[in-house]
């Protein structure tokens, strides 16, 4: 990791200082303790030693200019350490390869102000330097909770350290629809495409790239593909993973009709739009019913099928949850309903509540989900039935339920065809893939192997 050279405070009431003379030039090899430059203050002149041995780079303070105390005036790269130019320099000389970029002469360099948000030269340098990017404990925890790879988060701390706000900014950016990000402030955000109107219109994302038959993840009512991120991060799948936002959820626009068949058609469109005709499907709750319907009605092949807390196996569903969830507009009213999803009284985590709440801020999504609920769960009843279809599928099927599911009762697994594997988790609610990540991931890996 390169070492910063800082303009030190050599005088108690010194706010800025002047480098009167550099003793070394950019690119020169320096030893620890070697005099690098001389500082001049009102009272004295003082020589400043090198904090470490290596090659001095990116000298960014010219002789005679006043610069604030604490400013970085150069970097020292240890022997064998790959040199990467600082971000601000790269931006200015974008097209010039780093190794041929002319080193700035000391007299031309502009002073670098002490950054509120430090630039990330070290982030680019340290990436891949062993233990992954430097991050604070809180940033690591938040990244885990948001299902973010730390490597994808630019760090704003000293030497590119990733701090909590970096993770939150990144999570926020990912949660925002791309269309809104790119639109100019004065221009209203373009309406989202209706799922049925544009080919393959549902939003989807490859959560993992790779070789082989992919896993396709389909979320449940009121959720989005973001909910799968943390599950996939720890799942050790060795194939590509695609996740889809159902109509009216996440970053997908509304559907024209809300029947299972209409939703299945939109899903098929999206999967095919990614060039996938055959996949291992993992689907949750309402998404399970949509997926099963798609496999029955449309030409998409399932190599294996894993249904988590599936809807469509019986009439009961927690109608109060559906209504309360749809109505909740703030944290206080949403949280009690989200609690019902989990068996663990400590759930849901704050990040989960916040992510769900962000979706609720989108009036179009809320309206779409209400229309969907009115069609598939009218009067607190599941008006959908996938039992007959399940019996017709030829792919290996696993069904998983939490025994303590308070949304759809686990007893719905009774009476399923004998070929279907049933897994019941005690101490688990409606979210087995979040509540028993490792076990569910292992069973999915088994399903992938058995269907390959």
């Amino acid at each position, binding site marked *: 990791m390169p070492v910063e050279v800082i303009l030190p405070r050599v005088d108690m009431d010194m706010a800025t200082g002047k480098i009167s003379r550099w003793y070394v030039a950019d690119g020169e090899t320096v030893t620890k303790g070697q005099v690098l430059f001389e500082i001049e203050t009102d009272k004295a002149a003082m020589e400043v030693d090198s904090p470490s041995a290596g090659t001095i780079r990116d000298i960014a303070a010219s002789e005679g200019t006043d610069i604030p105390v604490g400013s970085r005036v150069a970097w020292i790269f240890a022997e064998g350490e790959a040199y990467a130019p600082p971000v601000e320099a790269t931006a200015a000389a974008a097209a010039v390869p780093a190794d041929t970029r002319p080193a700035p002469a000391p007299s031309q360099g502009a002073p670098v102000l*002490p950054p509120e948000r430090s630039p990330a030269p070290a982030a680019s340098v340290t990436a891949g330097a062993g233990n992954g990017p430097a991050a*604070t404990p*809180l940033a690591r925890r938040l990244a885990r909770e948001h299902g973010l790879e730390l490597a994808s988060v630019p760090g704003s701390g000293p030497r590119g350290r990733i701090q909590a706000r970096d993770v939150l900014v990144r999570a926020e950016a990912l949660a925002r629809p791309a269309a809104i990000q790119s639109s100019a402030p004065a221009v209203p955000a373009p309406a989202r495409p209706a799922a049925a109107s544009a080919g393959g219109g549902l939003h989807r994302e490859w959560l993992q790239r790779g070789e082989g038959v992919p896993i396709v993840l389909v979320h449940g009512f009121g959720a989005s593909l973001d909910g799968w991120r943390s599950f996939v991060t720890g799942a050790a799948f060795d194939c590509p993973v695609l996740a889809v936002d159902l109509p009216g959820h996440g970053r997908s626009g509304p559907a024209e009709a809300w029947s299972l068949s209409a939703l299945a058609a939109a899903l098929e469109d999206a999967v095919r739009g990614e060039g996938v005709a055959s996949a291992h499907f993992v689907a949750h709750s309402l998404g399970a019913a949509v997926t099963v319907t798609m496999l029955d009605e449309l030409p998409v092949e399932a190599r294996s099928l894993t249904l988590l807390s599936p809807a469509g196996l019986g009439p009961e569903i927690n109608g109060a949850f559906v209504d309360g969830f749809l109505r909740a507009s703030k944290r206080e009213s949403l949280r009690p309903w989200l609690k019902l999803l989990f068996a663990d009284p400590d759930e849901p985590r704050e990040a989960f509540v916040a992510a769900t709440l962000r979706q609720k801020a989108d009036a179009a999504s809320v309206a779409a989900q209400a229309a969907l609920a009115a069609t598939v769960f009218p009067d607190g009843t599941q008006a959908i039935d996938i039992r007959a279809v399940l019996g017709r599928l030829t792919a290996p099927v696993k069904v998983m339920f939490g025994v303590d599911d308070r949304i759809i009762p686990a007893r719905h697994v009774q009476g399923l065809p004998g070929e279907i594997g049933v897994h019941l988790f005690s101490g688990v609610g409606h979210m087995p893939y979040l509540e028993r990540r490792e076990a569910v991931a292992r069973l999915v890996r088994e399903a992938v192997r058995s269907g390959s």
Partner: protein
Amino acid sequence: MDAPVRELSFAQAIYEALAIAMEADPRVFLMGEDIGVYGGAFQVTGDLVHRFGAERVRDTPISELGGAGVAVGAAVTGMRPVYEFQFSDFATLAMEQIVNQAAKMRYMLGGEVSVPLVFRMPCGSGTGAAAQHSQSLEAWFAHVPGLKVVEPSTPHDAKGLLLAALEDPDPVLVFEHKLLYKMKGPVPQGHYTIPIGEAATVRQGRHVTVVASAIMVHRALEAAETLAQEGIELEVIDLRSLRPIDSRTIIESVKKTTRLMSVYEGVKTLGIGAEISALIAESEAFGYLDAPIVRLGGAECPIPYNPELEKAAVPQVPDIVEAARALAGGRT
């Protein structure tokens, strides 16, 4: 009904606690060099010799080892002595009695003996008293099981903690920062105690937890006032007791603010700040830290006599402002 509250100085609050205890309990008596007619090196005992007589306010010879030894002996035989060191630096002369006798007896004698005594320990720099009269050695004593160590920052807490110390069955060292003696603050009349082992959150804030004690509490509060104008909110915890230490209050605060800084006058290395840092690193609050822990402690040198150097040797308000600003801004 609550007792009437007056403005008293820190020294007056200690005087009042001593007087209350001596009136209430005939076993309580005072010992120390020049604490009688002279009234004590910092005029804390004042006229107590006239109120309670030379029998109970005893001038001792210039031998801290002797004085402390008599105090230990008196305590184990049923008295409740208070021994005043003129300067806590001189407790180095009495280490045998404090560390090997007072702290150990309860343990070595199967719990059949307790040593209910109080050592009063004027400490700290800022008075131009130079290297041998300005130290902050409280962490030394807080390292010894069997001793309790408290360090009040206000007249209110000085009285309450001293009365608690006088009622404690074990030896308690009360560190009194010399710069605080003249500081005034509200003090209720009559008897009350502050529990030993409880910190106080003296200012609420969202951005940085600052754990301080004694004079540093006031400097941290002043720094907090400055930074509040920049939108940076410090949460200031007054440690009050070093042994036992109130880890729960610090942990809960760090979980809220995600940033921790300790400010103390003792030498930085191997000091109170190291303990605070470690207890957070070992606790569930570790996962909430969003920046490295920062310690602001005394310089690695004896306290200089030159007044400017003396100031520079311990954290001052601008140092706290600067460090907390960098910490809150994610630049540490």
